[in-house]
C-alpha cells in the first residue's frame, strides 16, 4: 500500500550515526538493475546462428531499439542505441513497480532528476564535441549576442521539464492508485465484507492504465525526448556544414 504522508525519500537502512543511509528508492533501483543484469545474462547464454526461443524475442527487442534510435536520430547516430535501450528498459521496469505494490522508483524526484541530468550531460557533451566549445558559444549567441542569456535559460529548462514530467506523471498515477485503494478499503469496511472484495476486482482497469500503459508511455516519451534533444545538438552542426 502506498503511504501518501511520505512522499520524500524514505530511509530503510541507516549506518553509523544515520548520516549514511539507503533509501527505499535506491533499494528498489538496485533490484531493478539486478533484474536487468540477470535478464541480459540469461538471454545471451548459448546463442546460436539460427535463433530460436528466447533469442528470437531478445533479438526482436534489440532490433526494435536500434530501429527506434535510427528513426529518431539518423543512421549515423546508431551508437546511442545501447544507452537508449538501457534507459527504456530501466524506466519501464521502475515505472511499473506499482504493479507489485511497491513505490515506483521514478516517483522519487531524485531518480527523475538523476536521469534527466544524464540526458543534459549527454546533450552538452555532444554539442561541445561536434561544434567545439567556442563554436557552441557562437551558436548560442547567434543570430544576436543578446540571445545568449535566453539560450542558457532554454538549455537549463530542458532537463528541469524532462525530470519533472517523468516524476509528476508517475507520482500522479501512484497517488490516484492510493486514493482508489483507500476509497475501496473504506467501502469494504462499511459493507462489512468478510474479505476485501471491492479491492480485488475494481482497481484492475486503473492498474492497467497506471501500471502498464502509463509506464510504457512515459518510458517511451523520456527516451524519445532524450533522442530528440541529443540529436538536435548534432544535427545543428551537420546543417551548418553544408553552407
Amino acid at each position, binding site marked *: 500500500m502506498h503511504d*501518501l*504522508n511520505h*512522499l*520524500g525519500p524514505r530511509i530503510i537502512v541507516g549506518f553509523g550515526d544515520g548520516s549514511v543511509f539507503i533509501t527505499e528508492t535506491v533499494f528498489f533501483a538496485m533490484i531493478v538493475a539486478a533484474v536487468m543484469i540477470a535478464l541480459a545474462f540469461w538471454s545471451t547464454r548459448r546463442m546460436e546462428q539460427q535463433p530460436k526461443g528466447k533469442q528470437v524475442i531478445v533479438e526482436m527487442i534489440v532490433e526494435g531499439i536500434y530501429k527506434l534510435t535510427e528513426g529518431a536520430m539518423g543512421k549515423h547516430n546508431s551508437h546511442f542505441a545501447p544507452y537508449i535501450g538501457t534507459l527504456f528498459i530501466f524506466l519501464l521496469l521502475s515505472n511499473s513497480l506499482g504493479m507489485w505494490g511497491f513505490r515506483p522508483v521514478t516517483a522519487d524526484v531524485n531518480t527523475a532528476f538523476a536521469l534527466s541530468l544524464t540526458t543534459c550531460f549527454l546533450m552538452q557533451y555532444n554539442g561541445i564535441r561536434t561544434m567545439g566549445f567556442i563554436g557552441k558559444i557562437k551558436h548560442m549567441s547567434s543570430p544576436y549576442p543578446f540571445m545568449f542569456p535566453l539560450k542558457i535559460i532554454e538549455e537549463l529548462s530542458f532537463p528541469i*521539464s524532462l525530470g*519533472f*514530467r517523468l*516524476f*509528476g*506523471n508517475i*507520482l*500522479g498515477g501512484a*497517488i490516484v492508485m492510493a486514493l482508489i485503494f483507500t476509497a475501496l478499503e473504506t467501502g469494504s469496511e462499511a459493507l462489512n465484507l468478510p474479505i476485501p472484495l471491492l479491492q480485488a476486482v475494481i482497481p484492475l482497469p486503473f492498474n492497467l492504465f497506471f501500471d502498464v500503459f502509463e509506464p510504457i*508511455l512515459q518510458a*517511451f*516519451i523520456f527516451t*524519445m*525526448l532524450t533522442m*530528440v534533444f541529443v540529436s538536435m545538438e548534432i544535427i545543428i552542426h551537420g546543417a551548418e556544414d553544408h553552407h
Partner: protein
Amino acid sequence: MPLITPEAFVLGLSAIAAACIGLAAVGIGLGQGYAAGKAVEGVARQPEAQGDILKTMLVGQAVAETTGIFAFLISMILLFVNPLVGML
C-alpha cells in the same frame, strides 16, 4: 478571540488553492485533444504514416503536458509539504 486559528486559515486557503490548480487541466485537455484530432486527420489522409504520426503526436502531447505537471507539483507541495505553515 479569533474564530479560526492562523494555521487552520492557511491550511484551508492552501487546500482551496490546490483545488483551483486543477483548472490547469482545462488547457492541457484542449491542447492534447486538438493534437489528437489533427493526428486522426493525418492518419485518415495518409494511413501508411500512422506509426510516425503516433510517435510525433505522443511527444508533442508530452511537451504540452509540462505546464500541467508543474501545476500538479505545486498543488502537491501545497497539500503535503506546505511551506506556508512554517512561515507563521
